């Protein structure tokens, strides 16, 4: 759809062009190859991660190991003595957790492309001519009215543009992210407008999974002790291996439950009031001197807030992990190299689709 605006330069036609027309670039390059932020890309731009994805393997490892031990040691016993559906429930929850986690990690959080040189020059011109009272060396700000409330927009020196409301610059990823929530090291990515719902579903499903495993392990131990006491049968006594594994599961679940449940609860509050972690920490809307300024982005009902945060359509839902079957790989990933135009400086332009 966007390929119609640009023409691809084929290497074969280069020799046919007159020398008088300098070609800006010889080889078409994908937009993510010239992306100036600190992200890394795999699978030809379909998967992106932040530079520091260090703790993501740990998160995955913890989840896999705990669930693995659960299936190995607790499921056989519980299937027999409790219910046949225990492994099925655990498997479904586990799938949810892993899918949500991978989508959170590999989805573009809502990175704003940096301003093109012309756009940056245009903005600078407007700052100079507006006669604002701010000094040149002080951070540039612009005040706008949103829902009759004064909101300050800051100028981002790295991205050379005035940040839209609720956008923040992540120093770890070196990008401006829309509706910036926080940079999550466990997930190895920023959490922003486009992957917040995956992050939230990851937290909620992980809470359920952890609670479920914790409950099952406790039930397992209790049943074993009861049976041992009742029948005094040596068959039901714990082996050393099993004891160790069950203890490991208990410890991981116990510590995870408090942190994950707490985080889920906190983010549920944020979703219900249409706030981000960033705004909540900074106390932007809490008001000074007892004056309650109120969140200009919040709607009147909690239900609307939840729907806005979790259901409002994404820009392009399928960027990130997989591309849709039947999607024509559009040449829109190529730089706008148009033959015959006077040399235009190459811009690191890109859009939300890689």
């Amino acid at each position: 759809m966007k390929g119609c605006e640009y023409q691809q330069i084929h290497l074969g036609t280069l020799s046919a062009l007159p020398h008088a027309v300098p070609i800006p670039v010889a080889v078409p390059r994908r937009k993510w190859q010239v992306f100036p932020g600190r992200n890394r890309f795999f699978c030809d731009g379909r998967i992106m991660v932040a530079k520091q994805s260090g703790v993501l393997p740990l998160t995955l490892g913890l989840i896999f190991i705990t669930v693995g031990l659960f299936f190995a040691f607790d499921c056989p016993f519980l299937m027999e003595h409790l219910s046949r559906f225990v492994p099925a429930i655990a498997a479904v929850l586990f799938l949810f957790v892993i899918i949500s986690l991978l989508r959170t990690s590999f989805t573009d959080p809502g990175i704003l492309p940096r301003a093109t040189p012309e756009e940056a020059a245009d903005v600078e011109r407007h700052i100079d001519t507006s006669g604002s009272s701010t000094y040149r060396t002080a951070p540039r700000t612009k005040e706008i009215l949103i829902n009759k409330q004064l909101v300050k927009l800051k100028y981002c020196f790295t991205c050379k543009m005035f940040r839209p409301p609720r956008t923040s610059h992540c120093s770890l990823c070196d990008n401006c992210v829309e509706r910036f929530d926080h940079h999550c090291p466990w997930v190895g990515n920023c959490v922003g407008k486009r992957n917040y719902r995956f992050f939230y579903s990851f937290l909620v499903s992980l809470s359920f999974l952890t609670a479920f495993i914790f409950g099952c392990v406790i039930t397992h131990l209790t049943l074993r002790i009861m049976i041992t006491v009742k029948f005094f049968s040596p068959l039901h006594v714990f082996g050393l291996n099993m004891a160790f594994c069950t203890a490991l599961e208990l410890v991981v679940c116990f510590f995870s439950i408090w942190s994950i449940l707490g985080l889920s609860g906190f983010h549920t509050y944020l979703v219900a009031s249409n706030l981000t972690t960033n705004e909540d920490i900074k106390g932007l809307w809490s008001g000074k001197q007892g004056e309650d300024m109120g969140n200009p982005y919040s709607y009147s009902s909690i239900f609307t807030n939840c729907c806005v945060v979790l259901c409002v359509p994404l820009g392009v839902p399928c960027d990130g992990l997989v591309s849709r079957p039947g999607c024509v790989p559009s040449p829109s990933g190529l730089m706008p190299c148009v033959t015959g135009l006077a040399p235009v400086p190459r811009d690191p332009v890109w859009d939300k689709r890689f």
Partner: protein
Amino acid sequence: ALPHLPALWSNTRKTHSLQDLRQQASIAAKVFVQRDYTTGTICQFQTKFPSELETRIDKQQFEETIRTLNNLYAEAEKLGGRSYLEGCLACVTAYTIFLCMETHYEKVLKKIAKYIQEQNDKIYAPRGLLLTDPIERGLRVVEITIFEDQSNGRIEGR
């Protein structure tokens, strides 16, 4: 028979097609229409007419284009039964539903791209202007490229 009049004395101004622009014109300037945040964070653009375009296009025409774009973006982001349903379905299937389904937002984005293409072909390119789809700039600005007038040296009769 009348002698063939040279183009110099032609009554009609030479119009540009999009192809002509791409192949011959050089860029004179770029104008950026910024976002309008007064109604919140939904995507709306300012309808203020930039002074650089005064010689090229009607104010009404420009405002009509921007207003239509604003309406289309509002339609894309509209919270209705459809978006709730899509959201719930997506949540239940762990967002894998988008592997086989195109969302309402995507459909409207395609409509917007088609509209911009159409506006360029019919209205802007003949006047030596080019609209860039805002999605190319992260929905931050509507970039309008002003090409140098190729009919320099010809008398324009109106």
